[in-house]
């Protein structure tokens, strides 16, 4: 009898601090609304009213920058003479890898300043109805980046740990934070549906060509496979579409049921 390799699973707790955001805005209502938005997505949020209050927070973490994102208003009226874009451009050395963005309802800065902001990888977003869409877009990007950072970190830690088959250990990052409202699916049903749709996607070829536009993104087959594996909202919606296709294919018409040959 041949001896099958037995896969050994290793569980360990990985402590990862919550990602942290700094919001700088003199409009308290707006400040709290944006704070609540990011808190609902599991970020820790620090809030201050002016660039002068924000600068010491950056300086306190100069050696190991704390913030993943820094969101600032541009115009602070009577509370500060320092504009948000000046605060960002002046403190580049304190920002680490933070994604910076200016959210403003005031007049656009000059093209020269916009260019400087673009070179500093700082987004400029208007305070209007499309702000929600812009913040969600940025959050999605940040979550994807976080997952890659964690995967990279863990892979480095496990580099010396071989898998049962002898090759390098496989690392998979699974979010423990539910990203969707729970729907009643048994595990087996869900897994089989996922396997079906993933198998179909893999069979398409052109796996890295973005062709599946859904919501605000265009996904390649490989990207969609990842969303389905991770059971993100997008992934689950596509699993539901597979079910809807099955329902459609049944062609059940309750209003005009067909007659069958074996009807008496």
């Amino acid at each position, binding site marked *: 009898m041949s001896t099958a390799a037995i896969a050994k699973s290793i569980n360990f707790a990985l402590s990862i601090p919550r990602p942290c955001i700094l919001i700088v805005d003199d409009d308290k209502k707006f400040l709290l609304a944006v704070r609540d938005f990011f808190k609902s997505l599991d970020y820790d949020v620090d809030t201050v009213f002016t660039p002068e209050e924000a600068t010491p927070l950056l300086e306190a973490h100069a050696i190991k920058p704390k913030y993943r994102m820094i969101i600032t208003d541009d115009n602070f009226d009577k509370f500060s003479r320092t504009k948000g874009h000046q605060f960002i451009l002046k403190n580049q050395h304190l920002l680490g890898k933070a994604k910076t963005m200016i959210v403003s309802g005031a007049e656009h800065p000059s093209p020269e300043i916009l260019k400087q902001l673009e070179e500093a990888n700082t987004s400029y977003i208007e305070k209007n109805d499309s702000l929600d*869409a812009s913040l969600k877009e940025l959050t999605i990007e940040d979550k994807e980046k976080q997952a890659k950072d964690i995967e990279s970190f863990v892979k480095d830690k496990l580099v010396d740990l071989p898998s049962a088959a002898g090759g390098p250990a496989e690392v998979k990052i699974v979010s423990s934070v539910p990203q969707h409202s729970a729907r009643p699916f048994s595990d087996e049903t869900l897994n089989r549906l996922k396997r079906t749709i993933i198998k179909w996607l893999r069979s398409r070829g052109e796996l890295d060509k973005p062709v*599946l*536009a859904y919501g605000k993104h*265009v996904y390649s087959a490989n990207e969609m496979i990842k969303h389905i594996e991770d059971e993100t909202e997008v992934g689950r919606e596509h699993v539901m*579409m*597979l079910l809807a*296709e099955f329902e459609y*294919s049944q062609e059940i018409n309750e209003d005009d049921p067909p007659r069958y040959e074996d009807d008496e």
Partner: protein
Amino acid sequence: MTHHDTKTMNKIQSDLAGTYAGASPLILLSAPSHDDLTEYTSSLFESFPSLGVPAELRVFERPLTYEQLLSEISVDPETTDVALIFCGHGEPSALLGPGIQKKTFSTFYDDTIIEIRPKYMLAFCCKSAAGIGRSYKHKTEVSTFVGFGVDIGIVTVSGVYAAWWRKILYGLVSAMLNSPDGYALEKSVQSLYQEAIAFFHRNDKKYRWARAMKWYLITQSKSVKVIQT
């Protein structure tokens, strides 16, 4: 696709130079073009077949509002009925255009300026039925909205896929302008989607992304909202 700032392409039918007035609505094909999705959807308006009424196409890559657009083409919404046909990104309360930086958005249309609300609106984008569409229900004068209440999907490939998206867009606009009532409009819309779904169902071994087209068409057919007051 060559890129310019706000430009006019394919002026399909314009019997008045610069000003529009009269009983026929003006079809305003409005397409932001600033990312992979909107570059594709804006191309669907190229060579849009005539519907027998004046039409104007605007593809824009920089922030533009509906109000600014009306001003640019010298349309007075008080004297001209406008059929706004929008293809791009949407939110419940806004149709989105390009922001001033990459990956940002601006508001092309929202309901804050009620006086210039178009008489007809096809919002071929996500979610706008939940907000903008709902506000059409409360209008007192005759008006029509067709849009979607959820995120929608599109297969962004040329060939047979683009041909069917064009057919759907054209069919939706035509139905919107020609249906005698909301019931007839709803029926026309569903018939259009059933035809498209049946095509890709029959041909799902023939076309690589036929199955994904079916998914997205089924979702659209289930979530499309037709509001006619």
